[in-house]
């Protein structure tokens, strides 16, 4: 097996690919056929001819400013720029005619005359297109000389020889933690400006001034990169042909010499990256052009925030302790594993088979997750397995399973480029799923319409060149009422797609459903009081979605993390079925998954009631497949879910937990209850990179490996199975799948996998939707979207094309039930939670990178009106209290939230936002109701006693004894 993949065709084709009718032309005597609209430059590249260029690159539309790419075209006058000239049938092009060679030399000479020629010590040495082009055009001398009266007519010398300052020279901008901007090297090609606009969609950069005075500038006057709107996605750095925009890591470590293609381990977009290294030292991560999820783009997390892998706080040796008030003791792997196995066995002897369980990680690979659930089902002998998807997208599993027949998004990310109306519900893609958001914004700039349903005015509602047609700012907790009201409008105004419903759904069920939603109590006018959404606005949004062409729905945790999360998911599926927006490009229902492998961890049987591939444990035929493969008997009864494990622990029935790559103490609701559950256990094994919050209650700590240190696969939000490739040896000694295997063996299991490819073979052999997946296939085609089997050997970009997985689509009745969590005199405000771009989930990784410059602490967003009532000013410490507990944090005043609603993130353990959240949960799946908590906010002097006690306890629990000599 090839472990390292050097991309075969990674060339810059000069201008973006086009689609169109074939056009044939001749370039330097080579005949080439390309789609209509292609540039001559790209056509030449297709024919294997690289026309010299500076201002063109294939991630952005051509601009035609440098004139280096000129060519001769028979029958046309002059020397047209090949990047801006489209091909025509029968065109005859010469790229090396004498006159164009002369033009190019002249152009190069001008550029070089205003460039500091310090190439040997330049960070881009060897990776600079200006150097390359000077070489290609054969530039041998520069004849320009500065006129004696203006010796400093350049941008690169800080002072002249007499020490006079050069007014044209600007110092380097090093404000961004990850890259620098050195104006002295800029050739003003505007590739960065166009990348920021076209690829990222942030519009942070402009070219200021004209002619000799023109400059790239971030933000307004007085801004630097950090204070501008820049979100540090790196698209401009990627586009820059010189060292002007350069990664600090390359400046420090040198240009990389080898690369490995792998997958980002942060969010559910699952961007492909080239990890570029020297030896085993990682120099930079560059988004991979052929990655089908990201198409060459990235965000600040995947592109730059990988430094946590080498953070000083990373634990590299196993540790154990008798009780959680003792300090940790570093021990050998053997000792740690036999200690853990001994305790688990003793617990099972005393308290029964079902007294222990596992939590799988949505950050680990499919193979690792598969092994962890196998550990509990085959070795512990119960079904007590759960995963963090419990607290995020479990309602998606239930809701889409009931309506469509399977639990997954219906589209690929490319599909958004064919959508006409996009509905974003309870998601904040610019922060949570940034690379998807960039593509969505691109589509919106092309004219697609946007409807946002969210209590907060998220960035998408109004940002540079993007504005939502409708924003429905609903009260937290009223999703079902809003979604049902949308259906009411569609049905009563007869905007539904009758042909689709007759063909693809059950007509009798539709009639029942239509009667239900047509009831006046679901009308926007009647629900306005509860939801706070103006009826006219809601009607207009429903009409737009139903009649505006291809309608696509994207939703996030603002839908699922409610007591009616599953019902809302069904309501969303109803909307898509009613309007026929399912089963083709540009439409669909798309859950935006949070963590990188949350889709995969669900696919791999992490839930206590389901074996891999979403098959219930009650089915004897499914159990038989695994019983044969594993040689054990499988418990036919569902096991415990995370909240049930904790409840059972408090009740003394559940005593041992193996928790891989998951920090339930910080991420799960009602922190005090989680802490009590963990404290009641006799053996908590935490397997992670850092001593996370949960580890404060652990007896065994098994150091984990990062995604750079292992092989495997992640499955992203579009069901895409992407390879994770080992870039360097694990610093902790073992990949995570090896550690789970060692624990299983210490418990007596006979496992002997030697490579994750073998685990994938076992998954493929037991799970129909993965039947065709092999590492060899992934090497060949890059990635596949499940189902991948005999019928769809290269995977399935779009689901439910000819029919629903369950047969007929099922319209479900969605009655709105107000949550028990209500505001009242003591807790008059509603708290809702979310995340921001630079930090990731509980922040264990991102807090250990320079990303903290963007988000040092969690803050509470309060509407100015609510703030004034309480005497709160910008930046004040406030006490945030619910019936579960209280915490303190700083307030910021903003009208992004409506009056009556407050909002915070949960990235920092000091904030303890989950001390506030309650144990209410989704009716079907127990997914916690994070998005609605009744709270009170008042002025305070600083952290609460609980925060101080917690910090002190955490400090104590993290002590490590010095290793014995």
């Amino acid at each position, binding site marked *: 097996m090839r472990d390292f993949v050097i991309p075969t065709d990674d060339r810059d084709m000069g201008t973006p690919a086009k689609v169109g009718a074939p056009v044939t032309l001749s370039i330097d005597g080579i005949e080439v056929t390309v789609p209509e609209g292609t540039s001559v430059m790209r056509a030449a590249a297709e024919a294997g001819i690289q026309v010299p260029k500076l201002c063109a690159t294939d991630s952005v539309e051509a601009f035609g400013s440098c004139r280096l790419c000129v060519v001769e075209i028979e029958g046309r006058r002059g020397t047209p720029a090949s990047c801006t000239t489209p091909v025509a049938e029968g065109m005859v092009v010469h790229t090396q005619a004498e006159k164009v060679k002369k033009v190019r030399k002249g152009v190069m000479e001008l550029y070089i005359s205003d460039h500091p020629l310090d190439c040997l010590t330049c960070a881009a040495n060897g990776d600079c297109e200006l150097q390359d082009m000077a070489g290609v055009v054969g530039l041998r001398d520069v004849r320009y000389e500065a006129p004696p009266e203006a010796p400093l007519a350049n941008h690169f010398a800080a002072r002249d020889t007499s020490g006079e300052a050069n007014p044209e020279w600007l110092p380097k901008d090093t404000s961004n933690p990850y890259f620098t901007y050195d104006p002295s090297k800029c050739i003003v090609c505007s590739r960065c400006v166009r990348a920021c606009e076209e690829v990222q969609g942030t519009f942070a950069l402009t070219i200021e001034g004209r002619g000799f005075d023109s400059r790239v500038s971030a933000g307004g006057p007085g801004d630097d990169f950090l204070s501008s709107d820049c979100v540090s996605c790196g698209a401009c750095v990627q586009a820059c042909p010189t060292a002007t925009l350069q990664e600090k890591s390359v400046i420090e470590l040198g240009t990389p010499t080898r690369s490995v293609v792998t997958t980002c381990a942060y969010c559910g977009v699952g961007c492909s990256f080239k990890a570029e290294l020297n030896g085993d030292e990682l120099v930079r991560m560059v988004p991979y052009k052929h990655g089908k999820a990201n198409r060459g783009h990235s965000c600040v997390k995947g592109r730059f925030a990988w430094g946590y892998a080498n953070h000083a706080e990373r634990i590299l040796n196993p540790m154990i302790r008798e009780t959680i008030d003792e300090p940790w003791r570093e021990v050998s792997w053997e000792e740690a594993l036999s200690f853990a196995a001994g305790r688990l066995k003793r617990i099972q002897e005393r308290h029964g088979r*079902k007294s222990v369980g596992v939590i799988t990680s949505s950050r680990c690979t499919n193979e690792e997750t598969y092994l962890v659930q196998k550990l509990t089902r085959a070795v512990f002998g119960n*079904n007590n397995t759960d995963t963090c998807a419990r607290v995020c997208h479990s309602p998606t599993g239930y809701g889409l399973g009931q309506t469509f027949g399977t639990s997954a998004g219906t589209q690929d990310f490319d599909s958004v480029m064919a959508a006409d109306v996009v509905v974003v519900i309870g998601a904040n893609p610019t922060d949570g799923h940034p690379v998807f958001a960039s593509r969505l914004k691109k589509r919106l700039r092309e004219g697609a319409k946007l409807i946002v349903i969210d209590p907060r005015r998220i960035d998408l509602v109004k940002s540079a060149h993007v504005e939502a047609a409708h924003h429905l700012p609903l009260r937290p907790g009223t999703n079902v009422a809003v979604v049902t009201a949308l259906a009411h409008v569609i049905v009563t105004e007869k905007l539904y797609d009758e042909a689709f419903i007759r063909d693809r759904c059950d007509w009798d069920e539709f009639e*029942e459903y239509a009667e*239900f939603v047509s009831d006046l109590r679901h009308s926007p006018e009647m629900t306005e009081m509860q939801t706070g959404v103006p009826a006219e606005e809601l009607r207009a949004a429903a009409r737009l979605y139903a009649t505006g062409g291809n309608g696509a729905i994207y939703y996030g945790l603002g839908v699922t993390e409610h*007591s009616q999360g*599953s*019902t809302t998911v069904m309501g969303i599926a109803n909307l898509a079925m009613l309007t026929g927006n399912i089963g083709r490009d540009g439409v669909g229902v798309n859950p935006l998954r949070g963590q990188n492998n949350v889709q995969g961890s669900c696919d791999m049987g992490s839930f*206590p*009631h389901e074996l891999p591939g979403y098959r*219930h444990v*009650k089915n004897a035929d499914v159990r038989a497949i695994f019983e044969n493969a594993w040689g054990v008997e499988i418990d036919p*009864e*569902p*096991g*415990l*879910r995370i909240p*049930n494990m904790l*409840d*059972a622990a408090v*009740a003394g*029935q559940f005593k041992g937990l193996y928790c891989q790559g998951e920090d339930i103490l910080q991420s799960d609701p009602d922190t005090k209850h989680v802490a009590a559950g963990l404290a009641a256990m006799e053996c908590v094994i935490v397997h992670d990179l850092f001593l996370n919050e949960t580890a404060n209650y652990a007896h065994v700590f098994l150091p984990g490996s990062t995604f750079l240190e292992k092989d495997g696969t992640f499955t992203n939000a579009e069901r895409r199975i992407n390879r994770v490739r080992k870039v360097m040896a694990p610093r902790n000694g073992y990949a995570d799948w090896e550690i789970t295997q060692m624990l299983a063996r210490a418990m007596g299991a006979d496992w002997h996998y030697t490579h994750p490819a073998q685990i994938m073979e076992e998954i493929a052999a037991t799970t129909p939707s993965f039947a065709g997946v092999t590492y060899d296939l992934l090497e060949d085609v890059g990635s596949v979207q499940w189902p991948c089997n005999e019928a769809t050997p290269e995977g399935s970009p779009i689901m439910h094309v000819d029919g629903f997985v369950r047969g007929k689509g099922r319209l*479900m*009745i969605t*009655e709105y*039930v107000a949550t*028990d969590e209500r505001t009242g005199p003591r807790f008059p405000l509603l708290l809702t939670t979310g995340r921001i771009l630079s930090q990731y989930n509980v922040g264990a990784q991102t807090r250990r990178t320079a990303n903290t410059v963007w988000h040092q602490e969690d803050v509470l967003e309060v509407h100015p009106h609510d703030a004034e009532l309480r005497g709160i000013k910008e930046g004040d410490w406030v006490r945030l209290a619910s019936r579960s507990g209280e915490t303190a944090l700083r307030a910021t005043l903003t009208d992004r939230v409506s009056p009556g609603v407050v909002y915070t993130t949960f990235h920092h353990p000091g904030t303890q936002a989950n001390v506030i959240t309650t*144990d209410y*949960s989704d*009716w*079907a*799946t*127990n997914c916690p109701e994070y998005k609605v908590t009744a709270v009170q906010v008042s002025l305070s002097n600083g952290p609460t006693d609980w925060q101080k006690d917690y910090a002190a306890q955490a400090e104590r629990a993290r002590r490590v004894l010095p290793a014995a000599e």
Partner: protein
Amino acid sequence: MSPEKLVRMANQIATFFASQPGTDQAERVAAHLKDFWGPEMRSELKSYVAAGHGGDVDELVVRALPLI
């Protein structure tokens, strides 16, 4: 596990199925409990109701319990 919590969860499930059409709501509540609750949780709820604490339990749950 605390009986109040089990009852609250079971009642939430009953509320959903009560809103569904047809005459098999109790069967569907029973099926949901069987599919998603571990046997210990189910038997705790059963004994709680059997011990006569049925007052706060949704009538649909009471009808579903004998079916599991």
